[in-house]
């Protein structure tokens, strides 16, 4: 691998701008001073620009090819049908005037090409919404939450700091603890009368698993689990709200700073102390950078994995034949796991266009958003045979659930482990269950069921 770790770096120095409250981080690299502004106050600053968009002017989407909106409540419940209809209408890349202009590639090829072209598609903001970073704000290559918000060359440096904590052999030892956690959640459901009792597989099970696991890895108090969930929801689902009104984000930052301070006072062997101790050319990371990385891990690791677990259980509740196959032939899980990830990939990302360009015939302009729906790529018939059918032992499955290119999900090994264990424990405890009532789907960039009422038909 070609890294730039031998470059000479000093700093970072951090100061607070008294006028805006934004954090200004100065960093010297190879004799060149770089300044990074981290903050979310739109008024009077050029940090976040309010894009000219008011959801009320548009209303519900009637044509996703020309007026795409990932925040339309009808989108997530029907996303596979939307992608199919738009593609079959002869449109591989949808467009929208919403959010100041947004493009949405819907084929594997076009998603792949955006993900690989980090020169024209910047990651400095990955959540298309009403707030967009200005020219001086959150500049490439670092961004507010490295490495997800970073571009080359800084990306590789920030990513390399995180990778060892999430490598397969670092994650494998967590399996017994995740299994116990799942069993405890199942125990806590109380008395189950087969054929009668209805539980919620999202609310009582799926949503508790990732937040507990990442919280434990970070060494954060278990009692704060519900608060994490609120904050993660806030960042990902309320994208239509005004930037600066997101009180929770500020509270979240303050909370993480408290935890960092506590870890400084009482060091322990966990992910927070790991991040506080990693060194870049002999310098530890600024607390602000550690804070950004922790928030990223919480935001990226909680909603997403919980959605994958929920979607998988939602599928099994409607497909007893797949459920039975997993019980009869546990080895098939190797393939089933990847098929759950392909068919129900939860994560869509975003990019910002860095300069005007023609992309597959689309006249993209600087600062346009590009929505990057990896789940749509996973159902492209040019790439996957019979893409809308769940094939439990699909042998060739190059799905893009964890992204493609340099931003491959850093937590993919952990997410896979949690998904596998969560499904195994649930179907072992409840060998038969069925949907019982309305499933409620998420709104926004993470797709998954938020309420899954299921009737338990059999217990072990």
């Amino acid at each position: 691998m070609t890294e730039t770790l031998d470059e000479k770096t000093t700093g970072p120095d951090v100061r607070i701008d008294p006028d805006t409250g934004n954090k200004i981080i100065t960093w010297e690299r190879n004799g060149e001073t770089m300044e990074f502004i981290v903050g979310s106050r739109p008024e009077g600053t050029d940090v976040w620009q309010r894009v000219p968009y008011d959801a009320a002017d548009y209303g519900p989407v009637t044509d996703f090819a020309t007026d795409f909106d990932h925040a339309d409540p009808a989108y997530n419940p029907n996303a596979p049908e939307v992608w199919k209809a738009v593609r079959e209408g002869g449109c591989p890349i949808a467009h929208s005037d919403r959010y100041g202009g947004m493009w949405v590639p819907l084929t594997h090829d076009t998603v792949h090409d955006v993900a690989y072209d980090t020169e024209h598609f910047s990651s400095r903001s990955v959540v298309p919404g009403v707030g967009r970073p200005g020219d001086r704000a959150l500049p490439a290559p670092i961004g507010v939450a490295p490495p997800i918000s970073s571009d080359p060359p800084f990306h590789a440096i920030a990513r390399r700091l995180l990778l060892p904590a999430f490598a397969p052999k670092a994650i494998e030892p967590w399996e017994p603890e995740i299994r116990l956690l799942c069993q405890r959640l199942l125990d806590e459901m109380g008395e189950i009368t087969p054929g009668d009792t209805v539980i919620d597989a999202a609310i009582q099970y799926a949503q508790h698993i990732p937040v507990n696991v990442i919280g434990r890895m970070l060494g954060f108090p278990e009692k704060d689990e519900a608060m994490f969930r609120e904050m993660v929801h806030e960042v990902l689902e309320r994208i239509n709200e005004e930037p600066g009104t997101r009180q929770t984000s500020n509270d979240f930052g303050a909370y993480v700073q408290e935890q960092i301070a506590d870890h400084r006072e009482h060091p322990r062997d966990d992910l927070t102390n790991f991040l506080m101790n990693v060194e870049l050319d002999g310098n530890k990371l600024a607390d602000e950078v550690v804070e950004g990385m922790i928030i990223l891990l919480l935001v990226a690791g909680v909603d997403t994995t919980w959605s994958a677990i929920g979607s998988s259980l939602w599928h099994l509740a409607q497909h007893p034949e797949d459920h039975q196959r997993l019980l009869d032939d546990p080895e098939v899980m190797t393939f089933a796991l990847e098929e759950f990830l392909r068919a129900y990939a939860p994560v869509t990302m975003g990019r910002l266009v860095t300069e005007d360009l023609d992309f597959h015939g689309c006249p993209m302009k600087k600062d346009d958003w590009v929505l990057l729906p990896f789940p749509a790529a996973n159902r492209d018939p040019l790439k996957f045979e019979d893409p809308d059918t769940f094939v439990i032992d699909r042998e060739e499955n190059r799905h893009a659930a964890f992204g493609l290119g340099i931003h491959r999900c850093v937590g993919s090994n952990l997410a896979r482990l949690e998904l596998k264990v969560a499904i195994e424990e649930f179907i072992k405890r409840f060998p038969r269950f069925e949907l019982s009532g309305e499933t409620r789907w998420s709104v926004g960039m993470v797709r998954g069921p938020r309420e899954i009422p299921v009737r338990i038909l059999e217990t072990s």
Partner: protein
Amino acid sequence: MRVHLDAEKCQGHNRCYALAPELFDVDDYGQAMLIVEGDVPEELHDKARLAASNCPEYAITITENG
């Protein structure tokens, strides 16, 4: 049969290590490493093909002899 791994293309998806641990290992950063030299033993041919056809980044290629 020979297996080739393009380390520049590998992004650490870890699919090859999960499907064919006899042929691939992963380092401390989660990057794949090929652990066979030369011809792949006959009994591992299917696993090699499986690893190649599941790599999202097309980092693994296979050359069939003869």
